[in-house]
């Protein structure tokens, strides 16, 4: 290496950056910079994108062909009915799995010197996390589109018109976005990338399986059925089935099952507000 040559003549002074008093505008700008960076980073490791997309497709194929023949949904055991029933569950499960990516990526950043760089910059405090979760949201949207196409190939359809279908997708993606904030909170809390990627699995599997996603909770033992009925994850799945017009909409007197669309919205917003607040606070006080 040759010694870098540094001009001794004073370089034109860079204007001291405007005293951007922070505020919402700066917050959005900074988040976009971080989100772009994260998306750029994704394109450098295309394997991650490919694996993220393939996994749910395998789930669709596995569930619909392995379980398809032996599941009774809405009084029929026809595999085609189960496939229509299943798809919303897979959509929701897929977006919830994005938690793992978020928490792993954030923990990775936190464990490197990069986070000290960010924290020493005059940037909006929440931007590192908002940017990351926004990038996850983009990736998640693509995954859901791919999944919808695969679903259509195995016989899944929506029956209530495009606006309601879009609303259903919106709720699913909002749920996923909420869970990226859960991931962010885990990511800033554990700060070892390995722990961050494995810890979420401990509760993601129970959350997605003790629900109405793959089976009818009506056949569970009573206490498990209550858990399933009040599970935020179930609310989104139920809302999706209603809005897509898919079979297996659950009749239950649990409030979230009767008001699934509203319940799904409330759950997701509450999760976002709580986890975002905690995660940003933790991030501010974090020391790598």
């Amino acid at each position: 290496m040759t010694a870098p040559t540094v001009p001794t003549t004073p370089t034109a002074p860079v204007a001291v950056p405007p005293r951007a008093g922070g505020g919402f505008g700066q917050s959005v700008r900074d988040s976009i910079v971080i989100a772009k960076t994260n998306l750029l980073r994704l394109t450098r490791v295309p394997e991650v994108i490919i694996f993220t997309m393939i996994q749910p497709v395998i789930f669709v194929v596995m569930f619909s062909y392995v379980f398809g023949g032996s599941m009774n949904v809405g009084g029929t055991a026809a595999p085609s009915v189960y496939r229509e029933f299943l798809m919303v569950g897979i959509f929701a499960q897929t977006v919830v799995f994005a938690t793992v990516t978020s928490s792993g990526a954030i923990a990775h950043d936190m464990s490197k010197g990069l986070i000290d760089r960010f924290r020493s910059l005059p940037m909006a405090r929440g931007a590192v996390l908002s940017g990351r979760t926004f990038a996850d949201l983009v990736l998640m949207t693509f995954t859901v589109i791919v999944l919808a196409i695969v679903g259509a190939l195995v016989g899944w359809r929506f029956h209530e018109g495009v606006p309601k279908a879009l609303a259903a997708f919106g709720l699913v993606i909002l749920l996923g976005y909420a869970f990226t904030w859960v991931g962010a909170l885990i990511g800033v809390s554990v700060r070892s990338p390995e722990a961050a990627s494995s810890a979420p699995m401990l509760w993601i599997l129970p959350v997605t399986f003790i629900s109405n996603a793959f089976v009818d909770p009506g056949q569970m033992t009573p206490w498990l059925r209550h858990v399933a009925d009040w599970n935020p994850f179930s609310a989104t799945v139920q809302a999706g089935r209603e809005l897509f017009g898919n079979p297996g909409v659950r009749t239950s007197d649990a409030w979230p099952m009767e008001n699934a669309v509203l319940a799904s919205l409330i759950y997701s917003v509450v999760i976002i507000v709580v986890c975002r607040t905690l995660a940003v606070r933790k991030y501010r006080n974090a020391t790598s």
Partner: protein
Amino acid sequence: MPDAIYAEGLVKHFGDVRAVDGVDLAVPSGSVLGLLGPNGAGKTTVVRMLTTLLKPDAGHARVAGFDVAKNPNDVRRNIGLSGQFAAVDDYLTGRENLQMVGQLYQLSRRDAKARAGVLLERFDLGDAADRTAKTYSGGMRRRLDLAAALIVQPTVMVMDEPTTGLDPRNRQALWDVIQELVKGGTTLLLTTQYLEEADHLAHDICVVNNGLVIARGTADQLKARSGHERVEVVVHEREDIVTASTVLRTHGHGEVTVEEHTRKLTVPVTGGARLLADIIRSLDELDITIDDIGLRRPTLDDVFIALTGHVAEAAEPADAGGSVQTKNLPTKEMAK
């Protein structure tokens, strides 16, 4: 000129460990202060408090004219930090890394882009600008990190062990960069475990140990505190050792120490080079052949041992959880 960095009574505890236990600092504008100390001395904790990464438990500090606790964002706008890790995103190219940092310093997209281009050339990264940082060598990563810290030409630079893990050639190159920077008027606070580095770069040195500043002054002042110069003689024949030691005793200023197996004799002296000539003459008159003779001035290593009773590098890992472990990381990373 006011002090660019001023700290009074900084304290930080981690649980029961008093990582920093009342540190005062004053760095006049345009000068370089070296914080010198072993692993776990509290250097990094001081740096983290001055760069707003950590809130002090007590005391206060002003950096670039702003209080670190009350106006952290004003401090951040005016400082550049180059931490112990090269803070570089592996999956971005050098150029993308710098542009991102520029934009987060609130430069416009265009300014950030232009500034990145200038700095890549200046730090000899032009050819590698569009390769991902993953492919960079340790020295290149360090330079990219430094470039990122200089995006807005900060008035105050803080560098935490900038050359840890670099080979001697890269270290020298980085020293050159740092010296140019200081010539341009930047105030610099630098931590190091390398005495040679503090000696080479810093105008003033604070020796830190166990969270306290145990000595401060210029390199020369500190060296003067560790006592005398010494003359070292290596005689050719083993049987000359006794005679030679008599000669050294008459010229010297204290005990003569003898290392039998290396035939080396050492004596503290005052009087420097002239005395050296006298000793050579005396030995010559007695027909004693010498293999080597030299005047040894105290190094900062001697200072450090005199002050702490420890050899700098071998100090015990007595600091808050894991800092010793993290210190090993950059080297590992670079070995990849």
